[in-house]
């Protein structure tokens, strides 16, 4: 697979503060790459540097195997932080300026406005738009040049649930068309739903880099509820699980390798208990993320 972006030893220091410290990263063509991290972990600084708005203290990066410059940026559609446009211009006028900058024909403006569902309001001034419309306009702007790579920084920030769902569908449909997407976010649910790869930054350092599909792997956990006083005792006595935890009226079992919810069900039934609630829980990215951060903190001490 072709490498779209490769970052080597990228750093940004503000005096003593290391906003980013020696980042190495590769993004391949077709990846939907999530950059995770708490607030202030260096996500936006990283994106700012690979887009040439922040001068790096040290390190290099390459786009499409070339040194970065205005020409490479014209092949990228990017939004950093909140949508930025001229408030006194209409959505259409704003996009026409982007066309001039990216040297794209004006016909694209109406096409992308249609794609993000803004054609009705294209002649209203940007300052009259709702937050969701502003986000959609910025995605339209990123799509103008039919980019090979899209960079989105917190694309659903401040949106209502419906808006979040709309943007997510939009991102998935763009990803399905084979584009490479890089998303920075602290909304893990978001990343898990759309990304193929993810990395975790903390205090300017890369602490994890891997596949989203690997997240669910590892030990299975099963949630059990039953109207029987013996439940705790019976479950405690079995040797199917590594660990058992009680949360209000339910018990969460972390299973040994090779055992599943069916084994739990059979075991309980054999002991004369009928479970009224039996759920297999796949590990969420959120849980994994918190574990990664915790390991990191632990490792430091």
């Amino acid at each position, binding site marked *: 697979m072709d490498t779209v972006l490769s970052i080597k030893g990228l750093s940004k220091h503000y005096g003593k503060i290391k906003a980013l410290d020696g980042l190495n990263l590769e993004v391949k063509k077709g990846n939907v790459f999530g950059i995770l991290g708490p607030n202030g972990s260096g996500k936006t600084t990283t994106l700012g540097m690979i887009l040439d*708005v922040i001068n790096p203290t040290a390190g290099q990066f390459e786009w499409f195997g070339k040194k970065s410059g205005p020409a490479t940026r014209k092949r*990228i559609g990017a939004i950093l932080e909140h949508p930025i446009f*001229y408030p006194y*211009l209409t959505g259409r006028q704003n996009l026409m300026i982007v066309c*001039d900058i990216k040297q794209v024909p004006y016909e694209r403006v109406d096409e992308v406005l249609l794609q993000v569902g803004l054609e009705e309001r294209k002649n209203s001034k940007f300052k009259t738009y709702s937050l969701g419309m502003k986000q959609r306009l910025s995605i339209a702007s990123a799509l103008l*040049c039919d980019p090979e790579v899209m960079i989105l920084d917190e694309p659903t920030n401040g949106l209502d649930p419906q808006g979040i769902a709309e943007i997510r569908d939009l991102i998935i449909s763009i990803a399905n068309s084979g584009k490479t997407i890089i998303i920075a976010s602290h909304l893990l649910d978001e990343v898990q739903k759309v990304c193929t790869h993810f990395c975790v930054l903390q205090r300017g350092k890369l602490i994890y880099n891997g596949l989203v599909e690997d997240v669910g792997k590892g030990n299975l956990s099963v949630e059990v509820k039953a109207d029987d006083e013996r439940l705790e005792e019976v479950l405690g006595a079995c040797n199917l699980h590594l660990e058992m935890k009680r949360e209000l009226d339910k018990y969460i079992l972390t299973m040994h390798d090779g055992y599943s919810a069916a084994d739990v069900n059979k075991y309980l039934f054999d002991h004369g208990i009928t479970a009224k609630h039996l759920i297999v829980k796949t590990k969420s990215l959120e849980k994994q993320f918190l574990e990664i951060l915790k390991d990191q903190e632990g490792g430091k001490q």
Partner: protein
Amino acid sequence: MIRLLKIELKKVWPSRAFRLLSIMYMVAMVIIAMGVMPFLRWMKSKFEDFDLDGIDPTIIPFYEFPDIWQNLTSVAIWFKLLLGFSLVFSITNEFSYRTIRQNVIDGLSKHEFILSKIIMAGFLAAASTVTLFVLGLITGLMYSTEISFMLIFEDSFFLLAFFIQLFSFLLFTLLIGVLIKKSIIAMGLLVFWILAVENGFYIYSQVKKIEWIEYLLPIKSINALIHNPFPKYVFMEIQDWVALPELLLVLGYGGLFYWATIRLVVKRDL
């Protein structure tokens, strides 16, 4: 270059503040170019009311070719601040809306970005010069007693000097805008610098008779490129040409502002 100017015009023209300031500037130019003769006539009628028939201000040959060029340019340059404000407004807006950052992300280099503003400054200066030329032609042809091709164009180099004055001044306002980034503070600083700082130093240099201080004041130097022609109407001697050292000084300041403005933008994190 055309692409950058096109981008810039698309940005600023729909802006109400920009349009208002440039229209005010244009109107001011038309008024001073067209209004002198009616004003002199009005003065004459007032003098007549006071039985001072002997004095006729309308014989002042303000619009006479070729003197008209120095007369017009030396008055028109007073209004440069209106144009300067519109430019300060456009550059500081880019910082407060953060559109400069988005422009760079979209594929403009920082250098191209600031160049588009500089080209706009050149465009405004050129447009003002052309307007002044047209106004001068019209009023000159109306009021001049003697008209010939030679006379009309004889001192038209003042128009070029006017362009250089205005362009250098606009580069100065761009530098202030890039430096301060906030529109109101930048405009305030501009007025404070021109009225208080430069005049303060100027008066000090006059009192202490230290002439070289004058040359360290960019706006004074720019203003001094075209000398005030009006004392000649009371038979005093004036400089009715553009002196090379003064021209070089203004070009030097223009070059300095150009370099500093570009450097500031390119070196800075956005």
